[in-house]
């Protein structure tokens, strides 16, 4: 069994901070409104998610009530904190007892240092929608400074995101978290750039199919555009996917001729990826067929990369054995 294609992600944080809501929205197609039906998570809820074909995300959603927490740090510590690739720690921005929150964070850092010192740590400052717009950035900076200071003694480099389930910030955070686990990131990016050059497109964005998290993109010279557009697109398309299920089907592709002389093409690239291409119109060309055919042609190419992903995963453990 090769372990490097199975990734263990710990989702931790004190009770009520919104851990299960996040998981349900990103991986189970809940709408933000639906999440209020979720009850408290009892102990640890495991979910296994196939991501990009051969990568499996084992998401451990750890219930945050004190009883369970004491268990995690006590009797179950080696079970929970062994072979962790990623820790995602969620902080409720409205929490009354910040010190206690940080306390649990420190505890899990201690455990991680003991059992999996290579783990990546992500911090999500969650429920940002409850903070006034102009204060959000300041508050987030303050929070991150404090958390980094607490993590320094453990030699962990933190990466933090302000998030809220009511806007696209959640997608941004999770895209980056999941991308940090993809081994072939640079190959995907290079191929996408090449593809972009061939079609002379304004922009291409690569999404994972089920979650619609952004894997890679080629933004050339578009500083005027909305910097949050990737997350917004994820959000829009996910809503669309959801609404199409009412016809008991899924969508195959989407072609839009926009108002600004731009054409949008959204089509499946491989079984696990969807590509969105933004193309400026060139006069005298019926490009719709051309682009869709090109996507078909690129399909083989990207499938190859996906497969090579699997090979590497098999190779790597051997390599490690030799080193050991």
């Amino acid at each position: 069994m090769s372990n490097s294609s199975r990734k263990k992600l710990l989702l931790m944080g004190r009770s009520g901070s919104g851990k299960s809501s996040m998981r349900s929205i990103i991986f189970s197609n809940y709408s933000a409104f639906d999440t209020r039906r979720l009850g408290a998570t009892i102990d640890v809820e495991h979910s296994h998610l196939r991501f990009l074909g051969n990568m499996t995300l084992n998401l451990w959603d750890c219930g945050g009530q004190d009883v369970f927490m004491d268990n995690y740090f006590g009797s179950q510590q080696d079970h929970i904190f062994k072979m962790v690739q990623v820790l995602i720690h969620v902080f409720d921005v409205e929490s009354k007892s910040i010190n206690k929150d940080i306390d649990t964070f420190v505890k899990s850092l201690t455990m991680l240092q003991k059992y999996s010192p290579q783990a990546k740590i992500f911090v999500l400052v969650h429920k940002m929608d409850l903070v006034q717009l102009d204060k959000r950035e300041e508050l987030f900076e303050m929070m991150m400074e404090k958390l980094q200071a607490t993590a320094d003694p453990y030699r962990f480099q933190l990466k933090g995101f302000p998030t809220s389930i009511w806007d696209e910030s959640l997608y941004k955070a999770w895209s980056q978290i999941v991308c940090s686990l993809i081994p072939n990131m640079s190959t995907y990016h290079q191929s996408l750039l090449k593809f972009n050059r061939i079609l002379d497109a304004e922009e291409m964005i690569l999404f994972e199919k089920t979650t619609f998290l952004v894997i890679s993109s080629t933004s050339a010279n578009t500083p005027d555009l909305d910097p949050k557009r990737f997350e917004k697109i994820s959000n829009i398309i996910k809503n669309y996917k959801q609404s199409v299920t009412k016809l008991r089907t899924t969508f195959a592709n989407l072609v839009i001729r926009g108002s600004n002389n731009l054409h949008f093409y959204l089509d499946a690239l491989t079984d696990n990826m969807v590509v969105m291409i933004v193309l400026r119109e060139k006069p005298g060309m019926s490009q719709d067929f051309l682009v869709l055919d090109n996507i078909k042609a690129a399909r083989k190419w990207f499938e190859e990369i996906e497969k090579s992903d699997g090979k590497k995963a098999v190779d790597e453990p051997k390599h490690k054995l030799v080193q050991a």
Partner: protein
Amino acid sequence: MEATLVSNPKDSSATILLMGLRRGGKSSICKVVFHNMQPLDTLYLESTSKPTTEHFSSLIDLSVMELPGQLNYFEPTYDSERIFASVGALVYVIDSQDEYLNALTNLSMIIEYAYKVNPAINIEVLIHKVDGLSEEYRIDAQRDIMQRTGDELLELGLEGVQVSFYLTSIFDHSIYEAFSRIVQKLIPELPSLENMLDQLVVHSSIDKVFLFDVNSKIYVATDSSPVDIQTYQICAEFIDVTCDLDDLYVEDDKQEMRTLFGEDIRSVSRLNNGCILYLKQMIRGLALVALIRSDEKSDIDKSLAIIDYNVGLFKQALMKVWAHAKLQPANRPAVEN
């Protein structure tokens, strides 16, 4: 319908008057339907203190007037006569989760007055906030309200007045459905629009077609096949998807270019069961959205080409109808004089 327009030549727009007791949900309806506000956010709306009027430019010039609930309409200082004379539809909102006997008395008083001033007025009653009621209780409430209103109007000697009832809630699409029906009653060109859409459906292998107002997601017209609420929802959401994606890539300084030589927005999405969602921008904030079912995969492209051509024809026809409609208000006073 014609009479509404003629009776008030100054104001050619179709006006909807929203009335009801306080806390019935009038402002929330306005915000949700016309301003794309999230239903949950309407909890924080403040009480409306004075009459508000808003205009929406679409195929019909729609304006929505909202009267505060706590107002006494029969005070002499208040020019209710002029208002009632100028509106095409009176929408009365009843809170179904509250005790509604007061509201019914108020309603019949208003109907009596409005009918005297403007016999051509459409009276629509929204039995609102039904999301909190169980299925059978909704039916009971509707029957009860219809019965009591009928009795009250009979007592007042107004049995000829047509009152339509709708069960609505801002948390689902019922409010859009109700408003679509209400707005459709105000469009004098509706029969010809429906006829045109029927023609389009027959000749283009389209399953269902809607003519939407992009801003509010109210459908101005549809073909004569029955409206399936799910199809409506999907079509309405398809507009959102198209517009939202398009908006992301519009740079501010190119706004003018957009109007100069921007072609119409067109969006096509294939679904895995062979259906196609089709959207094409029409004139004046309208969009045509169609659901196309095709069985054989091979001729999708051909049928799309046919549909494109037919929709183009439909758009030209729409422009003619609109040019004609624009002339009417100017002509009518002259005819009268």
